[in-house]
């Protein structure tokens, strides 16, 4: 006989998992809505070229499907591409910024990985489209802080970089070496940097960029001592103002946990301003729970007339948050129990039992009511089962509609 198993990397969420996942999602959604963000639901399947247009996604990591016309489609590995596509064609970005949030599943394919990594994930995130500048950057970081605060997470670390600033630092390098320097920075490979064929001045600059991370004030003052061009100067000023603003606006904890890290960049050009990761320290180590950045060159790729709009956003990794929150005891330990068990005393009392259950459900709050057949031989077994499942009230319904309410002692 065939045993039906889920494919490797797939996972079912059972009611308790769902209750915990929803606990997290409700809280962050509440915060997103409070900041004026509206939920968008985009298609799970996208054209492969839509998913790959931004240059941040490797086609090999997308689960691909062919449609009836033979077009190559993929299961979305993230939401920003879909939202950018939908926003530039369907929303009025000219009349003001759009604040959008999502809460969706994404899929990832692992190439050459024998380890059976998970390939379906849940994400919640926001995109602020059509708004550039300091105010929008600060809004996104403060919203991120607010979201994780709503989950009661203790002092996560914010790793903050600036893609333009790092790019400017790399400008003096000869073009053939620049991408190797950048890759060595992004992959934290100092040995490779030391081995590159660079002039002493450029080697010093590369190692300076490699080691440039730490408390914002220290890093900013080190950067201030450099001879920077106009573009880099304005990126640095923007970063300075942003950090000051964060310190003034958020609670001190969040600002105190900020680390400016200019090698915290991607090997590809996607981000065009601040880029960040939110890291939570748990007993089993550090976990990235969120990430994001500014992407001012993305929307024009999807716009029919190639019109450009700024954009910035972040995504929270629901699985990582679940992992971090589970040992804290904040998540509901099990699915919520029913409030009532309604038991018709005989089969002639079924109608009355359904009617009484309906009456109980008429409340402004959710009242969970389930029905069970009576076992005239053994009423205690019914009580034990109810007790075991956390139900505290049983309504015994008679044929004539009379109800006897019994409170169970735990």
């Amino acid at each position, binding site marked *: 006989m065939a045993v039906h198993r889920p494919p490797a990397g797939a996972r079912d969420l059972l009611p308790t998992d769902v209750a915990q996942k929803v606990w997290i999602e409700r809280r962050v959604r509440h915060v997103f809505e409070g900041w004026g963000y509206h939920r968008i639901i985009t298609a799970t399947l996208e054209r492969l070229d839509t998913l790959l247009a931004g240059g941040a996604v490797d086609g090999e990591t997308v689960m691909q499907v062919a449609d009836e016309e033979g077009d190559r489609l993929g299961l979305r590995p993230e939401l920003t591409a879909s939202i950018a596509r939908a926003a530039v064609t369907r929303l009025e970005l000219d009349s003001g910024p759009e604040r959008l949030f999502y809460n969706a599943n994404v899929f990832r394919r692992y190439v050459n990985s024998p380890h059976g990594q998970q390939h379906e994930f849940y994400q919640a995130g926001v995109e602020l489209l059509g708004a550039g500048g300091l105010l929008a950057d600060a809004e996104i970081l403060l919203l991120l802080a607010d979201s994780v605060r709503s989950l009661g997470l203790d002092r996560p670390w914010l790793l903050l970089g600036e893609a333009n600033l790092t790019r400017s630092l790399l400008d003096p390098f000869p073009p053939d070496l620049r991408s190797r320097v950048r890759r060595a920075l992004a992959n934290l490979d100092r040995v490779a940097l030391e081995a590159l064929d660079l002039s002493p001045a450029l080697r010093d600059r590369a190692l300076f960029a490699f080691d440039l*991370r730490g408390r914002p004030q220290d890093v900013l003052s080190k950067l201030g001592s450099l001879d920077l061009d106009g573009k880099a100067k304005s990126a640095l000023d923007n970063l300075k103002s942003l950090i000051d603003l964060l310190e003034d606006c958020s609670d001190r904890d969040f600002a105190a946990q900020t680390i400016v*890290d200019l090698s915290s960049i991607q090997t590809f050009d996607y981000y065009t301003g601040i880029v960040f990761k939110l890291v939570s320290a748990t007993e089993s*180590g550090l976990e990235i729970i969120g990430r994001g950045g500014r992407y001012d060159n993305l929307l024009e790729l999807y716009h029919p007339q190639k019109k450009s709009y700024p954009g910035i956003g972040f995504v929270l990794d629901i699985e990582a948050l679940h992992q971090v929150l589970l040992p804290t005891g904040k998540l509901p330990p099990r699915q919520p129990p029913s409030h009532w068990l309604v038991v018709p005393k005989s089969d002639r009392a079924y109608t009355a039992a359904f009617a009484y259950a309906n009456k109980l459900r008429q409340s402004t709050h959710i009242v969970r009511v389930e029905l069970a057949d009576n076992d005239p031989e053994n009423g205690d077994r019914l009580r034990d089962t109810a007790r075991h499942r956390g139900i505290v009230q049983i309504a015994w319904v008679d044929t004539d509609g009379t109800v006897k309410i019994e409170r169970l002692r735990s």
Partner: protein
Amino acid sequence: MLTIALPKGSLLEDSIQLLKDVGLDFSAFLESGNRQLQILDPTNTAKGLLVRAQDVPVYVEYGQAQIGIVGYDVLREKSPNVAHLADLKFGGCRLSVAVKDTSPYRRSLDIPPHSRVASKSVRCAREHFNALDLPVEIVPLYGSVELGPITGMSEAIVDLVSTGRTLRENGLIEIDVLFESTARLVAHPLSYRIGSDGITQLVDRLRDRVSCFASIQN
């Protein structure tokens, strides 16, 4: 507290000496009766994990150790996602192709297509022959690779060579060097970026110690 993964085998003694030079003493790992796999340094500032060399980057990649010492050959073979912070300059050796000294082959390309090549470093060996566009069958072994050509199982081997004595004593000669290897200081990328538990200071101290030592030798 910082956890440091240390490799069993040839790099252990130098690794422990280096850490001792910067104030962390794990020499208990070297005592003959030692069975412990995890010890605290006497100043209670760091924990040492004693693991197989191949496992060092695994513990570091998953963040159970924030820092590790491991040969470059292991990093090339496994390409783990870890930060490569310093060349520690000790444990020098090379990954080489070797054949029987009685064979006519004097470079990799002389080896006939579809020959068998025995190796512990399967991935590096495959990359080497792929780059030469020479189709060979790589036979994975876990030890005493020299026996491959001696028993006639393989025409050649790809193996780590330090002095070359083992090769000579087994009638083998080195015909190509894939790359030179030394011990490397690696770190868990996220831990290094965040810099908690004094990881940055420790890495700087180790790096200073190595460059100071290297300048004395030159």
